[in-house]
């Protein structure tokens, strides 16, 4: 099957000599939910900018559903929907007009454009706001407007550059549900995000980019499997003794009711509970100290620095 996105040896240098991309290569398969992660300035937005023609590449090859952007960029663009990081619509235009006009730029006749605009504005909960000037929308609504605008020509590849930045938790969750549904219906999705929890919850495959280079390109399951250590925080029912030790585990007493336990690869959490039970310590709740992926991310990025 032809990949949804193929990037080969992609390079971007600016006039001042700064190399934003140093020959990255990656492939995103059709139907995938793919995360592109990296710290600020790593090259994520440059990569996305090249794919959707807002940035000119210095070298390399990009193909969208087999269509090379150097040979047929308009053909490739028809398959792409882009949701940028910054709001990039006319704040004085009405919500409905913004979506309908975008459809027009893709050659959709007015009646079909209006039909599609209604469909996606309804799905994203913006139909009631269709006659409102876009500047009157809240931040979350503006982000949803950009998603509706990106979907109006029904692209096969949707690229979202930090779509949930600055969005409240409830709105973020509903956006996740919408994107999961869209992906289940067959749309390939590429997401850049700073919320690693988001990548872990939504995406199947991942690439981590740092200093213009891909430092990791695999499945999220594989990444998590490679983690050697997890840290759990345990809330205890009764007051803890001054010193708590569990054989083969590193334990820290955080306060009178809280323990931090490191579980290495090969060890199980059941062993921890058995040992605590032997000491008469009862646990009321438990959580990860940090997002597992976040730890991996920090290790990879710091390792490459």
């Amino acid at each position: 099957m032809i990949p949804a996105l193929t990037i080969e040896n992609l390079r971007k240098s600016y006039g001042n000599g700064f190399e934003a991309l140093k020959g990255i290569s990656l492939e995103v398969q059709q139907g995938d939910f793919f995360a592109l992660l990296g710290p600020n300035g790593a090259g994520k937005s440059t990569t996305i900018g090249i794919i959707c023609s807002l940035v000119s590449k210095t070298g390399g090859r990009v193909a969208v559903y087999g269509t090379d952007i150097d040979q047929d960029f308009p053909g490739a663009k028809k398959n792409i929907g882009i949701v940028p990081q910054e709001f990039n619509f006319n704040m004085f235009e009405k919500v409905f007009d913004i979506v309908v006009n975008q459809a027009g730029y893709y050659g959709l006749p007015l009646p079909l454009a209006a039909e599609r605009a209604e469909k996606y504005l309804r799905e994203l909960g913006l139909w009631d706001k269709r006659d409102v000037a876009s500047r009157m929308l809240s931040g979350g609504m503006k982000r949803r407007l950009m998603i509706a605008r990106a979907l109006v020509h029904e692209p096969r590849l949707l690229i979202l550059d930090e779509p949930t930045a600055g969005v409240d938790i409830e709105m973020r969750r509903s956006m996740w549900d919408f994107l999961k549904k869209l992906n289940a219906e067959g749309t390939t999705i590429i997401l850049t995000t700073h919320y690693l929890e988001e990548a872990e919850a939504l995406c199947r495959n991942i690439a981590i980019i740092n200093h213009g280079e891909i430092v990791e390109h695999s499945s999220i399951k594989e990444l998590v499997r490679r983690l050697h250590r997890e840290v759990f925080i345990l809330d205890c029912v009764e007051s803890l003794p001054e010193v708590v030790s569990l054989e083969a585990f590193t334990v820290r007493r955080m306060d009178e009711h809280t323990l931090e336990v490191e579980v290495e690869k090969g060890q199980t959490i059941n062993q921890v509970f058995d040992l605590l039970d032997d000491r008469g310590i009862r646990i009321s709740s438990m959580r990860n100290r940090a997002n597992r992926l976040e730890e991996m991310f920090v290790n990879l990025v710091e390792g490459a620095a």
Partner: protein
Amino acid sequence: MTLQEQYVAFMTILRKEVKRYLRIWTQTLLPSAITMSLYFVIFGSLIGSRIGEMDGFTYMQFVVPGLIMMAIVTNSYSNVVSSFFGSKFNHSVEELLVSPTPNYVILLGYVIGGVSRGLLVAIVVTLVSLFFTHLQIHNLLVVVAIVTMTSLLFALAGFINAVYANNFDDISIIPTFVLTPLIYLGGVFYSMDLLPPFWAAVSKLNPLVYVVNAFRYGVLGISDVSIWIAFGMIGLFTAIAWFYSMHLLNTGKRLRQ
């Protein structure tokens, strides 16, 4: 994109442009009507009555074609420069750049939007002028051709200005310091015959002289320059402006990183 899809994209841009200037008609259409009315009253009626005839016509009849052309030039230019720079400023131009719309359709959409405003203002100003004088049309074909070509040329010039502009000051510098002086020195208010030979020769370097005189020929049948040279010059400048604008779009200068 098929031709049909390109037509849809073109109409989308044009519709958006027309809606934009009609929505803010008090800023786009009304000022020209008021300014030109003042010109007609002051230069045509009050001062003109003391000047007497120029090239066989009353002063009012002589200045009307130039004033109509002045409205066309400024409106075609300012519509494109403000609209395209505005879309660059708020990044909504990216909506077009990420789409498969060909560059020539983008350019045509904005430029014809500017031309349509130039023509609409020309009609308004012409109607206003009828309150002050009787207008005849010497050659309708010349009138239509010169109005269309001139608004096309200055809409393209507005586009080039918008691409290079970095801030709102940059889009007012050219109209204020280049366009307005060229219009005033382009023979709107006087005949070249009144100038000393040296300044008459210098004036012929001003492209607005050809625009104003060609239009005056279409309306009154008189011109200080050859009508064919006028058409040739305007055609040449329009072609240069079109290809340069396409070059800017194709290379993504100031639009793509």
